[in-house]
């Protein structure tokens, strides 16, 4: 009885908070623009691949490297494949890799950040030393070396991006945990005999969650850029078309000197738009969640 009552209260509170949040967020032009961009690409990734045909078969020599026309809106590539269809199909892999890698980074970052901040002392020193090492190692060579050794596959590229992108998040979450663990309710929880794990999961995690969420947006932007760069440098799965893999093939096949702009520009523009979409939302969230920045 008591349990359900609390649940209901919690739900009403959540609903109220969300509607207040949306009320403020709605006023933010940048935030809405970012949201529209991301919704567009999410729709493209979910529905798009069912609407276009991108078989990867050679359509015939006369259809190779054609500039845009009514039949092929964005022209064709060196194998006569439709570039527009490639961009649509590629959106799915690009977004999938970006989001999956972000989830890995956030989970590692949250665990290390909360553990370091909560336990303090030796645990904190060791974990933060480790984090600093990750922050100082040049990220692209590290990812390239790992990807080259593991071999080009979708799972490996997700793993490599996820495992290298958590250090900044861990630092931010640690500092927030440091302030939260001093609050009275944490002390009360400890006084009634709650264990460390219980406190971390039920008292600290919910309070650092907004921060994790805001950080996710920025990490996702970096993850999408990383996927594109790694794939461009030949570390992507060549059988799974993504925007980065497409740019890799275009570059290797000499699209630059051929002047095949229709093959090089569209995938790049998609990456830039998605990254901008995430960045816009990141800025907007910062403005909404941080009252100091809010304009009146």
């Amino acid at each position, binding site marked *: 009885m008591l349990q359900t009552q609390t649940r209901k209260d919690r739900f009403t509170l959540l609903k109220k908070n969300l509607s207040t949040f949306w009320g403020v967020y709605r006023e933010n032009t940048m935030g809405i623009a970012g949201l529209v961009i991301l919704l567009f690409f999410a729709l493209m990734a979910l529905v798009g691949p069912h609407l276009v045909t991108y078989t990867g078969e050679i359509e015939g020599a006369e259809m190779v490297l054609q500039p845009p026309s009514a039949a092929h809106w964005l022209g064709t590539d060196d194998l006569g494949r439709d570039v527009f269809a490639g961009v649509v199909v590629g959106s799915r892999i690009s977004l999938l890799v970006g989001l999956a890698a972000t989830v890995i980074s956030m989970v590692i970052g949250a665990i290390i950040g909360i553990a370091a901040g909560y336990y303090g002392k030796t645990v904190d020193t060791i974990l933060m030393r480790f984090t600093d090492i990750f922050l100082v190692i040049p990220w692209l060579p590290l990812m390239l070396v790992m990807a080259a050794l593991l071999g080009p596959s979708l799972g490996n590229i997700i793993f490599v991006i996820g495992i290298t992108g958590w250090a900044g998040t861990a630092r931010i979450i640690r500092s927030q945990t440091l302030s939260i663990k001093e609050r009275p309710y944490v002390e009360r929880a400890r006084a009634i005999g709650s264990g460390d794990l219980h406190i971390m999961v039920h008292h600290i995690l919910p309070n650092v969650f907004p921060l994790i969420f805001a950080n996710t947006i920025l990490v996702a932007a970096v993850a999408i850029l990383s996927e594109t760069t790694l794939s461009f*440098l030949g570390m992507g799965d060549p059988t799974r078309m993504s925007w980065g893999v497409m740019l890799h093939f275009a570059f290797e096949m000499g699209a*630059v000197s051929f002047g095949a702009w229709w093959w090089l520009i569209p995938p790049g523009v998609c990456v*830039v738009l998605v990254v901008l979409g995430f960045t816009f939302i990141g800025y907007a969230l910062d403005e909404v969640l941080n009252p100091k920045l809010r304009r009146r």
Partner: protein
Amino acid sequence: MKMRGYVLRKLGQTVLTIFVVLVFNFFLFRIMPGNPVRILIRNPKISAEALQRITEQFGLNQSKFVQFGYYLRDLFTGDLGHSFVYRKPVLDVIMEKLPPTLLLTGTATILSIIIGVILGVIFAWKRGSKLDVAGLSLSLVLYSMPSFWVGILMVMLFAVYWPIFPIGGMSVPGTYYATIWSQLGSLLRHMLLPTVTFALILIGEYVLIMRNSLLEVMSEDYMLTARAKGVSNRNLLRRHALPNAMLPMVTLIAMNLGFIVGGAIQVETVFSWPGLGRLMYTALMGRDYPLLQGIFLFVTVCVVGANFCADLLYRYLDPRVKS
């Protein structure tokens, strides 16, 4: 804290970082699926005896611990292994490709810092103006672009559609230059496009940091005091605001080194610039593992070392940290 204690602590951290990188590098190249000798030899038809002999020769039949000892010994004698593709010691290949990279990244970094600081000061001074908003939006867009893609756009614009610059490389292969000046001229023509691309990639962050840092300093009380004393705008900026606002730039330049290395790999690949970045791409494409491992180690140690120097420099420059 005393300066000596600080230096020692930072030095300890740096050594620890490098050691962790060494251990990581050692094990990373040994968790690969398959027999390392087979990967090393790359000949599927190798006989069992030859395989055995090579395994013993490389000490691969010893324990991992002993192997790590050999690895460290080789490193300290400058032996980074043998490149598959170049058929030369890895260190020799790296040293050969280092000067072009230093030339390109050095020029681009200096250029982007100078322009970035100037633009940052202008934007901060004219805060909220159309110029400021336009500049910020442009920095944001540049920041969202994959670096290699900026390079591709530049090549297409200025070397393919409007061919005023060479498409790549550092010189025209097979050309003999009559004078050193014509050689220098050719180098400059080849260098301009990659340098500008690189500077474009780096500049956005410098502009943003410089602008925010200056805005922060300008809201300090001592700036108001200086203004009240009747210090001219020009002196206010040059003597009171800039020295303090420049401080975060020192840290940023060091922190950015990892990003600069990443940029070098992409820009050099797109422009066929014969440096370390392109070497890494060649090593990746040719699955030249010893070379790949060598470049990674070399680059990481350089970046970690540079960060150590920047930490010391920052402490020397900012008297507030000393007390």
